[in-house]
């Protein structure tokens, strides 16, 4: 298990936004909702489209391509046409930095 590493400054991930980042070649989407920042694999499990171009609805992210929705916490699909979960990562805010742990 690797350590938490900084992937963005908090000010670059304003509340209510989705921001794509990369860590060790992994494409990650950060979602800032309320006090929390979530991190998911930045690819819809339906047709490999980046979730970062989708939109936030409550604690779910909607893929813009066909409307599949995923739970930000668990990556579980909440609306078809997706049937498989999206990988999630541990994320935290440390001071002014957003940190993610992968692997």
């Amino acid at each position, binding site marked *: 298990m690797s350590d938490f590493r900084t992937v963005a400054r908090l000010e670059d991930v304003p509340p209510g936004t989705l921001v794509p980042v990369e860590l060790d070649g992994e494409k990650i989407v950060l979602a800032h909702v309320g006090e929390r920042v979530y991190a998911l694999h930045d690819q819809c499990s339906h047709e490999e489209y980046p979730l970062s171009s989708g939109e936030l609805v409550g604690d779910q992210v*909607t893929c813009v391509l066909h409307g*599949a929705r995923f739970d930000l916490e668990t990556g579980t699909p909440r609306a078809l046409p997706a049937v498989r979960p999206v990988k999630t990562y541990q994320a935290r805010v440390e001071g002014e930095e957003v940190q993610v742990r992968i692997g």
Partner: protein
Amino acid sequence: MPQNETIRDLGLDEYKYSFVTDEKPFFKAQKGLSEEVVRQISAHKGEPEWMLEFRLKALEIFYAKPLPDWGGDVASLDLNDIYYYLKPQDHMERSWDDVPQEIKQTFERLGIPEAERKILAGVGAQFESEMVYHSLKEEWTEQGIIFESIEDGLKLYPEIFREYFATVVPPQDNKFAALNSAVWSGGSFVYIPKGVNVDIPLQAYFRVNSEQMGQFERTLIICEEGAQAHYIEGCTAPSYTSDSFHSGVIEIIVKAGARFRYTTIQNWSHNMYNLVTQRAMVHENANMEWVDGNLGSKLTMKYPSCYLVGEGAHGEILSIAYASDGQHQDTGGKVIHAAPRTTSQIVSKSISKGTGRSSYRGLCKVYEGAVGSKSNVECDALLLDETSRTDTYPYIEIDENMSSIGHEASVSKVGEEQLFYLMSRGLSEQEAMTMVVRGFIEPIAKELPLEYAIELNRLIELEMEGSVG
């Protein structure tokens, strides 16, 4: 055959339903699609703010999505030349006697209340954009079954509604799902509580009466664990010289161990564009069946789907299409195996006559991890004339090696030997031909409720008239 007399009144053949009712709508939105029209629809329904927002968002998605470049010729449909909302009366009736006389006559000519008295658990009737009548027999209400217009579903059961609405077919799914999400009106909201078995069908009847009318019903069905039900929809419209448009969205959730069957007998007039998204999410050991009969319309594009998301889920699609002169039936089905030991079967039969064209389009997808899944697809196409045409476009995508998938399709004309044999037994060529076609559709006809099966046979007979010689 006295039985046949009443069945005839159900009016599935086009000679019966081509009449037009002289309507005096309560409200008719301006022609064409705009944000204003969407706002008017929402206001007339007195909807919560979130639904208006949902509609406006869907309208944007609709504008942004390209028309499909496959399937039928959708481009010739002028989307600005359609009325998107026509409210026939200011409220829905629960007693048949209160339905306005003209509309009542329409449905009486189609045999709806009669059918209800005889065999059905509940009946809904949609005229233009709204359900004008919805009723459920008391014994079923007592068991907690909800069978309402979709608008009343939203009003009376806002929580269940919002939990499931657009989770099976999101507006982004395809251009016409987006359109429906923006302008939806009418359709049913059905909730079958846990363990309840409705052993006689619920039925909805859809009627488009006006010229250049668009009908966008939306149906949401939730079948709780271990419950069982059967829903039937029938659709008709009179023929006009200009085109009409029907674009429904049907969402069904079949919970663990439940069984649900959805039957459509679509006999729209031959000027109707019928672009429908029907999809079911099927959970553990649940069973979903689509029985899909496409006989009418100018162009139908419709592929009922089963998303098998729970272990042991089973999906079945029985599809029959009849394309005669000028018709294109682009139909089929989709099965998505996303859990272990899921099984599915698609049986498709199509008949093309004259310049008709029938296309089977299907998807069978097995995700990695759906071990032990099995799917079988059979498509048969019958061609009656040298000008008729048929296509088969199955997509089979398999990511799991521990599965077994088969697809077979065949195309044939009515066999000379078969005809010769039947004629040697004293049948005329016409009768022999009709008998062969009947035999061809038999596996699906037998899955229909009796009155529909007989009607289907009658329709085939009518269509076959003059097909020989």
